[in-house]
């Protein structure tokens, strides 16, 4: 009997539920503090869109753990993308980095690390704001398939995926619920 290859398209699997997500973030916060020997001179910059609420959550967690509240900023990288002119410009939102990044350890925060191009754009945007001492990367999900030599310092969950799958992160702040789903897209 022949299998219908189209049958799998649209199938969704929950890989992280709310509790898993918050535990992973808590562990990432502890790793950040351990690696940087505290939270002094640390600033968090979330990459629009879902990196921003994640950065804010990490900021609160760091505050609980270390008693120090790091500055948290938001970065929209639309103007730094390498595909400007190749596709419809994405909706931009205002960047807010109301503090100096020079000399600081900047932890970039994003929901999913995939090709690495968004992070490349974020680093370019960041150096226009000043000269950080270190730039580290914290992501909720690393799904593999890097196209540039970029790697995360802190990973909530490693999720090997195929190129036909879509990883969807939902957060309470943006989507009303905390969860991570993998959806089979077909070709």
């Amino acid at each position, binding site marked *: 009997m022949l299998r219908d290859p189209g049958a799998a398209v649209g199938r969704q699997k929950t890989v992280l539920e709310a509790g898993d997500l918050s535990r992973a973030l808590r562990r990432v916060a502890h790793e950040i503090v351990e690696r940087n020997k505290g939270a002094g001179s640390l600033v968090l910059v979330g990459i629009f869109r879902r990196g921003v609420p994640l950065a804010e959550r990490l900021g609160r967690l760091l505050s609980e753990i270390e008693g120090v509240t790091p500055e948290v900023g938001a970065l929209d990288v639309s*103007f730094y993308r390498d595909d400007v002119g190749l596709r419809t410009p994405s*909706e931009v939102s*205002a960047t807010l980095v109301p503090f100096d990044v020079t000399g600081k350890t900047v932890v970039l925060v994003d929901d999913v690390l995939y090709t690495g191009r968004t992070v490349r754009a974020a680093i370019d945007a960041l150096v226009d704001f000043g000269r950080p001492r270190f730039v580290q990367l914290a992501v909720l999900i690393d799904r593999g398939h890097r196209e540039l030599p970029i790697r995360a310092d802190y990973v909530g969950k490693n999720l090997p995926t195929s190129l036909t799958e879509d990883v969807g992160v939902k957060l309470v702040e943006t989507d009303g619920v905390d969860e991570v789903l993998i959806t089979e897209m077909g070709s």
Partner: protein
Amino acid sequence: MIKHLWSIDQLSVDNIDLILRTADSLREVGTRTIKKVPALRGRTVCNLFFEPSTRTRISFELAAKRLSADVINFTADSKTSVSKGESFKDTALTLQAMGVDAIVIRHSSSGAPQRLSSWVDASVISAGDGAHEHPTQALLDLYSIRERFQGFEGLRIGIVGDVTHSRVARSNIKAFTKMGALVTVVGPPTLLPASIEKWGTEVSFDLDEVIPKLDVIYLLRVQRERQSEQFFPSTREYSSYWGFDARRAAALKPDALIMHPGPMNRGVEIASDMADEARSIITDQVTNGIAVRSALLYLMLGGEGADE
């Protein structure tokens, strides 16, 4: 986003909303130390100005440079090929051969930008054509109003002055009406077009009667030359009937906005001390002009092709 812009009619409400939201981000870029993002790196924007302009040309130049685009200025004065008798079409074909990505054109003939677009592959943006339209002025005016009022629905906007000769007025009336505002046009009957009642606005010749109801008063430049062309007996008479002065400012709502596209004729359409009044956002309009024009360039050139 559309490929060319010479009239507000070409933009839908959604298009306009997108441009204004994108302008928020570009305005933030203007507050940084490094006021530049690489989005249009390597693209070339040509300012093709057949009419004099310093402010609009510089505004477009800064807008393009904010996105890292290269800018060339082609001003039709005694040093250029136009004075040597080169036709408009040949100028266009020359620019086409040079491979520019966008042309910002100001011309004394209505329809010139549309004509230009038939000769070149570049995106064409009008910076004013004859008495027809000045769409980017309307967009930056919308942006400036949105900053204070957030929405436009039901907002009462008075446009005062020489509407007959004003491309700014034509674009603004279209833009404000499209976004849901209620427009009243005020001026001497000699300077309001005969067909004005078909434009979807209220009309009044009595500024004092209209002022207390306005959320925004938009003053148009009145050229002193119109006095010699018999449109009004004297500039003093014009300003006593339709000039914005301290007495009229007192009758204006406390949270209303005073706007002007510039350059001002202090003492004619606006009293000198009124230009610096607290409710005036005339200088904000200039700042916003760069952000809005940047946003437009980004949206028009940053995609893979226009959804014509």
